[in-house]
């Protein structure tokens, strides 16, 4: 090993000095929350990348329907990324080398996907394959990408550090969560190789379509059961950790906002996921045991009467699914808002404005998110009373979001704003989430939803909240905490290129979706709506959006290179490079050893005591005694 190790051990070597564990125990079957957090992080980033790759293939099809897709344009760049990362690793066993190899594997996977007569005969994408890609893009992005990154990775790594705990409350359970997630992911990937391919009924898996779908759907359900188990165990762990393991003096109202966000998120996972598990069990029974929970009597599929007992309800699935999936979308956004709190306070050098109102708003938001689910179902034949209920709750839930966003924006006032890469991403989040959130309102009103439901308007709405919203916040988090994990900063220059490139191009992807949505263009059309008269003058937008997506993809390469290059070459930093107040910076060494703190920290003040009048420094850490 070279001399860098002594000054700034990279991720893999973080614990070399502390105890002598074998390689497997140390990195693979570790029960240290930081290692598990990193495992989550790397796996989730790879899945994000994969989910995006699927989408870029789809966008090619949408821009040039029924034209052959030049697979090499996708395979070669991914392979090149793999080789570059391998070169950075100098082929020494390390994280970079592993990821480099995995990228090569990904290239192979993509070349498998882009060949084969049941997927792309002559390079032309079949509609059924488009549907597989769509369903898997949604599933992978949500369940295998963003949630594991936001909760599994950031939550695991940061929460115990921020509350002054040595680890999670149940370290072994924590490892079980990760491995359950891992298995779930593998099952999802394997499903691409079964006859008929992966699940192709949308990420929502509506019955009866999903009941009569190909084998891939069964894999999807089994995969989901693993993912749900993982989330459940994880959320129990988080809640217990936050309640029980707070350091002395760390009262609830002194918790960093990020911890609050994770706390509420965990409750959403804990209580909303089981109904989907139930629904999954029922759909599995339908598919494997011949029951008909979601199949009414008298179905005729493909000209043949379906031989089932009948008596089920397709809508039952939707209720159970959305009972999970609505809270789930807040699971996607709350940790992002938490990250934003940390980054904004740190880079404005002042406390968050209205900390208490932020906390109450997050709790209220979490609570309300359980009773709005049927706004996804206005057009399933709802009458006036029940739709009035769900319209009202949907409008109510927008208020805490507005309170949170307003408080975050007002927090900027009076600050001394440093435009570091994490801050750039955090700042961009605000208006982007604004667009996404505001466009939720017309969807939440039943009459306006009539025209907009299941059009690209909906796609635009939620991508604004998840992509330039959550994803940007996650990028902010990566740039912000990377130095704590690795002892080195990501390159600012590359960070800024990554930011501006992504920020501009992502709007080209998602803004035209609203225009298409107003025109009434349906989503999930494998030829980009060529067959529809009302969409004729909207077709040119497809190409604009697709080019936007590929440019967006190109700028991610900058990020990946930055990520691995900086592991070795980044500017090396001390324990608290951002001059932050929270415990992970002020009390834990960089990188934190096994057990996190050399001495149990004690907390004396709130989380964001920046620029306290009368203090000589512009930040007063939580563990600094008066």
């Amino acid at each position, binding site marked *: 090993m070279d001399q860098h190790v002594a000054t700034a051990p990279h991720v893999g070597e973080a614990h070399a000095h502390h105890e002598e564990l074998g390689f497997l125990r140390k990195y693979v079957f570790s029960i240290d929350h930081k290692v598990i957090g990193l495992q989550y992080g790397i796996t989730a980033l790879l899945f994000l990348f994969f989910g995006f790759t699927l989408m870029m293939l789809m966008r090619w099809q949408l821009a040039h329907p029924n034209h052959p897709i030049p697979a090499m344009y996708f395979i070669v760049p991914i392979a090149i990324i793999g080789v570059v990362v391998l070169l950075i690793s100098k082929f020494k066993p390390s994280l970079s080398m592993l990821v480099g190899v995995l990228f090569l594997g990904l290239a192979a996977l993509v070349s498998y996907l882009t060949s084969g007569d049941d997927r792309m005969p002559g390079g032309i994408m079949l509609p059924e394959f488009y549907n597989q890609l769509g369903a898997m893009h949604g599933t992978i992005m949500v369940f295998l990408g963003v949630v594991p990154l936001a909760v599994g990775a950031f939550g695991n790594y940061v929460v115990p550090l921020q509350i002054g705990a040595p680890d999670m409350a149940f370290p072994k359970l924590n490892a079980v969560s990760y491995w359950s997630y891992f298995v779930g992911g593998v099952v999802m990937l394997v499903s691409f190789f079964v006859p008929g391919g992966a699940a192709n009924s949308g990420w929502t898996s509506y019955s009866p379509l999903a009941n009569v779908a190909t084998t891939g759907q069964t894999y999807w359900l089994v995969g989901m059961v693993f993912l749900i188990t993982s989330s459940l165990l994880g959320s129990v762990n988080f809640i217990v950790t936050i309640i029980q393991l707070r350091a002395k003096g760390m009262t609830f109202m002194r918790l960093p906002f990020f911890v609050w966000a994770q706390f509420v998120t965990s409750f959403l996972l804990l*209580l909303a996921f089981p109904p989907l598990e139930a629904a999954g069990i029922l759909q599995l029974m339908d598919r494997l*045991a011949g029951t008909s929970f979601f199949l009414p009597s008298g179905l005729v599929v493909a000209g043949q009467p379906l031989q089932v007992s009948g008596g089920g309800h397709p809508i039952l699935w939707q209720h159970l699914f959305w009972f999970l999936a609505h809270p789930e979308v807040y699971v996607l956004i709350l940790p992002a808002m938490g990250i934003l709190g940390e980054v904004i306070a740190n880079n404005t050098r002042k406390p968050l404005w209205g900390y208490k109102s932020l906390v109450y708003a997050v709790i209220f938001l979490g609570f309300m998110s359980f009773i709005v689910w049927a706004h996804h179902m206005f057009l399933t034949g709802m009458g006036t009373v029940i739709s009035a209920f769900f319209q009202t709750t949907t409008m109510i839930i927008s208020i805490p979001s507005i309170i949170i966003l307003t408080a975050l924006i007002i927090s900027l006032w009076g600050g001394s704003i440093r435009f570091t890469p994490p801050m750039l991403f955090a700042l961009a989040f605000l208006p982007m989430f604004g667009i996404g959130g505001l466009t939720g309102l017309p969807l939440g009103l039943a009459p306006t939803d009539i025209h907009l439901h299941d059009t690209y308007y909906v796609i635009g709405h939620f991508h604004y909240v998840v992509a330039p919203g959550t994803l940007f916040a996650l990028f902010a988090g990566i740039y912000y905490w990377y130095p704590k994990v690795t002892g080195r900063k990501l390159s600012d220059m590359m960070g800024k290129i990554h930011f501006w490139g992504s920020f501009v191009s992502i709007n080209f992807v998602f803004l035209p979706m609203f225009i298409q949505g107003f025109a009434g263009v349906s989503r999930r059309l494998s030829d980009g709506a060529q067959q529809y008269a009302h969409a004729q003058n909207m077709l040119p937008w497809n190409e604009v959006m697709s080019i936007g997506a590929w440019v967006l993809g190109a700028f991610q390469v900058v990020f990946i290179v930055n990520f691995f290059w900086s592991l070795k070459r980044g500017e090396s930093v001390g324990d608290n490079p951002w001059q932050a107040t929270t415990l992970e910076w002020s009390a834990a060494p960089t990188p934190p050893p096994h057990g996190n703190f050399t001495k149990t920290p004690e907390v004396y003040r709130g989380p964001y005591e920046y620029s306290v009048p009368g203090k000589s420094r512009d930040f007063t850490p939580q563990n600094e005694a008066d």
Partner: protein
Amino acid sequence: MQIPYTVELRSDTGLFNAKLGVWLFLASEVMLFGALFSSYVLLRVGAEHWPHGWEELNIPLATLNTVVLISSSVTMVMSWASLKLNNFKKYKMYMGLTILCALIFLVVKAFEYGHKFEIGHLPGTSTFLAIYFTLTGLHGLHVIGGIILNGYLWGPGSKMWQSAPDRFTNRVEVAGLYWHFVDLVWIFLFPVLYLL
């Protein structure tokens, strides 16, 4: 550094970690079975014809199973109380009985299932049977989980009594909470499926 509050209680919450953990887990289980009960209600309300449980199912066997499961709950709590009273032998006996009851429950259930299969009553036969097999099957899986858990605490896991008796007692308490919950679910399943 050790993880605090694995044995001792945290003063402001009055709990040790695992106890809070298991209650949270049970909360999620409530939602799991809640969703299934909700489905049951919807299917039943929407059905044109719904058989009475007693027409389709074997009430004496189910009553027997109810008694067996209630007994196992008592022996479970007794095993914990024995540990509290420092009586490891009695603990072994009560825990053994708990596991035995659970096994009896499964055997009886297996007979019930076997009979249903024999006369061609399969999950796909009717919505009633579908929900019956799903609910009892899932409950059965929970029973199996309980047997594994309790078996561990009865056998290899009980070594901890020597090294860390308080921690072991806590473990038994937590396992007990889970086991009582399994019993509780059955208390609702029994009338809902068999008697109504």
